[in-house]
């Protein structure tokens, strides 16, 4: 009797397990299908794409044509330069500030924390409208160009990504016991020395995760780039794609090739640093 019950329970569990696997399989298919399709269509000819014949998936020359005709290398290079420098600047500044508000209680520290958080509730376009006008004014009156330059977009991006980086990093620093620095200072370290030698190495996972996050956000940024980087010399990838669609409206094969190439850097960063990144991001989230 009891045996029978156990048997039934086991069978039920097995059926549940299989059903769950099937459901998971369906979700996985839906998840990867668009990416697979992007890759496949980037290797098809324009005519086969229009006719819906998925037979001849070998046209690697699409990538060469895209690279040469859309001048993709330029935009790719611009994106890499802008995003890397932005990541470095924003990360350094945010690390200092994040450590400061995690560790010290000083007049204005609470207010600064609130200001950091509240910037996250304001849409980017709120800053973009006056910033654009301000940049144009500076250009006209002082002769310093900011719009359509590397430094203009890098300064804007860096400052724009600082607040949320501060917030993520603050969590990491707060989780490190205070006694460590105190011990270091008793041993004769300056506050800055203790920060550099003790705290930074201990929080490297969090800092790297935040850095990746900044890079991903910058790589993904479109709104500011559309306004502040519109000439081919500084345009990032999405702006470049937009600049050239007029000429290549129906060349989906080329556009999909461009899509694949824009995804690759993120893919590489993500899968080489996946463990660090995910543990870093989720640690911050679970702690709040």
């Amino acid at each position: 009797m009891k045996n029978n019950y156990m048997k039934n329970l086991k069978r039920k569990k097995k059926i549940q397990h299989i059903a769950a696997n099937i459901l998971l399989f369906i979700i996985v298919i839906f998840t990867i299908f668009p990416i697979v399709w992007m890759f496949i269509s980037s290797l098809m000819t324009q005519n086969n794409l229009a006719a819906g014949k998925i037979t001849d998936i070998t046209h690697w020359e699409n990538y060469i044509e895209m690279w040469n005709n859309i001048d993709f290398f330029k935009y790719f290079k611009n994106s890499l330069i802008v995003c890397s420098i932005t990541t470095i600047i924003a990360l350094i500044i945010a690390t200092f500030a994040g450590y400061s508000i995690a560790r010290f209680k000083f007049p204005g520290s609470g207010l600064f924390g609130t200001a950091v958080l509240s910037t996250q509730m304001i849409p980017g376009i709120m800053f973009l409208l006056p910033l654009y006008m301000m940049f144009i004014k500076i250009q006209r009156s002082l002769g310093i160009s900011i719009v359509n330059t590397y430094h203009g977009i890098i300064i804007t991006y860096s400052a724009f990504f600082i607040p949320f980086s501060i917030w993520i990093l603050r969590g990491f620093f707060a989780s490190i016991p205070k006694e460590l620095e105190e011990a270091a200072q008793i041993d004769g370290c300056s506050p800055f020395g203790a920060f550099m030698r003790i705290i930074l190495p201990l929080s490297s996972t969090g800092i790297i995760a935040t850095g990746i996050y900044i890079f991903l956000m910058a790589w993904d940024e479109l709104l500011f780039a559309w306004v502040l980087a519109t000439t081919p010399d500084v345009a990032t990838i999405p702006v470049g794609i937009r600049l050239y669609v007029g000429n290549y409206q129906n060349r989906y094969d080329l556009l999909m090739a461009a899509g694949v190439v824009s995804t690759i850097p993120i893919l590489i960063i993500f899968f080489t640093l996946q463990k660090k990144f995910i543990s870093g991001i989720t640690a911050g989230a679970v702690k709040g």
Partner: protein
Amino acid sequence: MKVEISREKVVSKKNKKTSRLIFEIRKNRFAYALVLPAFIAMLIIHFIPMVQGIYMSFLKLNQFTLNQFLKAPFVGLQNYYTVLFDKSSTLRSGFMDALRNTIIYALSVNILVLVIGMISALLVNRKFKFRGLARTLLLTPWVVPSYVVGMLWGFMWQQDTGIINRILVDWLHILPDKPFWLSGPNTLWAIIIPTVWRSTPFIMIMLLAGLQNIPEDYYEAAEIDGASSVQKFRHITLPLLRPIIAVNLLHGMITHIYSFNIVAMMFGHGAGFPGKWGDLLMTNINRNSFGIWQMGTGAAATIVVMIIVLSIVGIWYRVFREDLVVEE
């Protein structure tokens, strides 16, 4: 006499307070030095433009007055009137369409992302062969830049040659004829589905991390008491994940109300108009501000959106206040 003493006391108290403040500031020189670069950056890129933006919303700032910037004619609340109430204005009808679309879009995306993210997290939290592979594959949409997402799905939704209509109509015969996805009310689906596709992995990761933090014993104890899977989920999993759900719900609401990239790139790869049923607030404001240089009404519209978001944050805080306290 008495009065004088008390006044002296007040003064000395005040002096004490200021000297204490100066002392505190001196003592924390290091902390201030660390915050200073971030403060300057935020001052220039966030706070000053923010104040200017609020002021701009009261100015008649269009293609004719653009050169005057902050010296443009002051018109009080007229921009707000144009955006919200002026029935004859095309700006208003466009804004209202975008507002309606954004509300539907943000709500559906958030609900779908949470439900699918939760199901996926539960599914990959079990022990089975290929678990690592399944988790990695489920994460892949997250690596695709959102402008590529817009471009890719815009291509997939094509009426005649798009792969989605080919699968639905030509191969599986689910629908009798090929619908237009990128015009008419269907557009809402065409923008919601890609956003859900792109946003689910992040939520799944967060929920999965939360699931892994729940001690096994809770479930074992419940099993001894004869709880079913559904009961275990309702009474153990869900309450313990509430803080994570709360934070991600707020983050999701803000992100999706301010969503821009996917929709902007989906229609003509950034050159087209999303239409009455596909336009979102950010694409609408961006087009009106930088396309036809209606900066004053653009600033006013932005502030209206901001007020809506701030009230959502307020409601959220009231609903989830207790979860946040527990979390601390």
